[in-house]
């Protein structure tokens, strides 16, 4: 790597925005990996659209994090010049695409949360976050519908599609707990009305999942042991590979522009 990492002064609000930005960027990048490879042209476009929505959300959140931090960083530096241990995204979103079912189950788990989360965040006392939420909510609502329809068709489709969807659900389940966890810094933001408590969304999130799973004749796991670590920079081995691709251009040719 030809250029060193930036330092980020992670005050609670900077870290809060950075975590959501990293979620959106990493998941957006994962979906972009399908571009040109999806099982049908229609889905190639659909997944790329969702990727672009997420990368758009990431840009706004990074810009806001950089503005709040006020140390001369910007959206590009935050995206391209932090290494794995500095990334704060959920472990769920960095998991590999796997097959089409795994990609859509990952999207379903995340979008079912994001839809509720952004809708709730529209009442944030932080006007920038509330504005980002208002835009992101409509996008997430569609992402959820898109993924839900696929889950139903996998589950209620062929024996093979049912099996693949169930395997993906069982595999990714342990990564969902992190979405509802908060630390002390976030608790203070919740108390101040800047953030919402994600724990309050879990019941409705489960209801969404149960309704779709039931229509799809798929089973949600009962185990509640959950993986965590992404929010504090302890990632699975997959994120490093993703970032080396995402960041290769800026690391090789610092400051390069199109």
């Amino acid at each position, binding site marked *: 790597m030809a250029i060193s990492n930036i330092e980020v002064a992670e005050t609670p609000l900077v870290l809060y925005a950075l975590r959501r930005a990293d979620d959106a960027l990493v998941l957006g990048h994962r979906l972009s990996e399908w571009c040109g490879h999806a099982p*049908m*042209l*229609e*889905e190639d*476009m*659909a997944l790329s*659209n969702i990727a672009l929505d997420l990368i758009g959300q990431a840009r706004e959140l990074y810009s806001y994090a950089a503005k709040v931090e006020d140390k001369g960083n910007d959206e590009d530096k935050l995206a391209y010049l932090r290494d794995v241990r500095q990334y704060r995204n959920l472990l769920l979103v960095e998991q590999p695409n796997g097959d089409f079912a795994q990609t859509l189950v990952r999207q379903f788990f995340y979008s079912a949360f994001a839809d509720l989360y952004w809708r709730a965040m529209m009442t944030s006392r932080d006007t920038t976050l509330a504005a980002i939420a208002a835009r992101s909510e409509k996008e997430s609502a*569609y992402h959820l*519908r*898109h993924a839900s*329809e696929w889950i139903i*068709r996998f589950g209620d489709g062929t024996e093979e599609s049912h099996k693949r969807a169930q395997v993906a659900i069982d595999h990714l389940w342990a990564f969902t707990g992190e979405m509802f966890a908060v630390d002390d810094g976030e608790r203070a933001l919740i108390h101040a009305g800047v953030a919402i408590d994600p724990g309050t969304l879990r019941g409705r999130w489960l209801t969404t999942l149960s309704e779709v799973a039931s229509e799809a004749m798929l089973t949600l796991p009962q185990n509640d042991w959950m993986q965590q670590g992404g929010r504090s920079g302890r990632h699975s081995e997959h994120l490093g590979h993703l970032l080396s691709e995402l960041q290769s251009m800026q690391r090789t040719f610092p400051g390069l522009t199109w």
Partner: protein
Amino acid sequence: MATPNTPLWEVFIRSRNGLAHKHVGSLHASDATMALQAARDIYTRRGEGLSIWVVPSSAITASDPAEKGMMFEPAESKIYRHPTFYEVPEDVGHM
């Protein structure tokens, strides 16, 4: 990728209130719901639409190109059918 599981659908988009739905293209999807989603993702990415119709391509009955002489040529010589002898007031808008 035409397979028995993903038949062809024709897509119609209405771009503004007051205009008619217009044929924009086709796509493959397993059913009407998926066709509507795919239409949204493929044909309204740049803000083209306010409303989408999808119709199974198999539901469309088309004229036979071999019969175009009989079907269309007789109309070509009847210019008096064109409403060119009076002006439509601007307030009328789209007709």
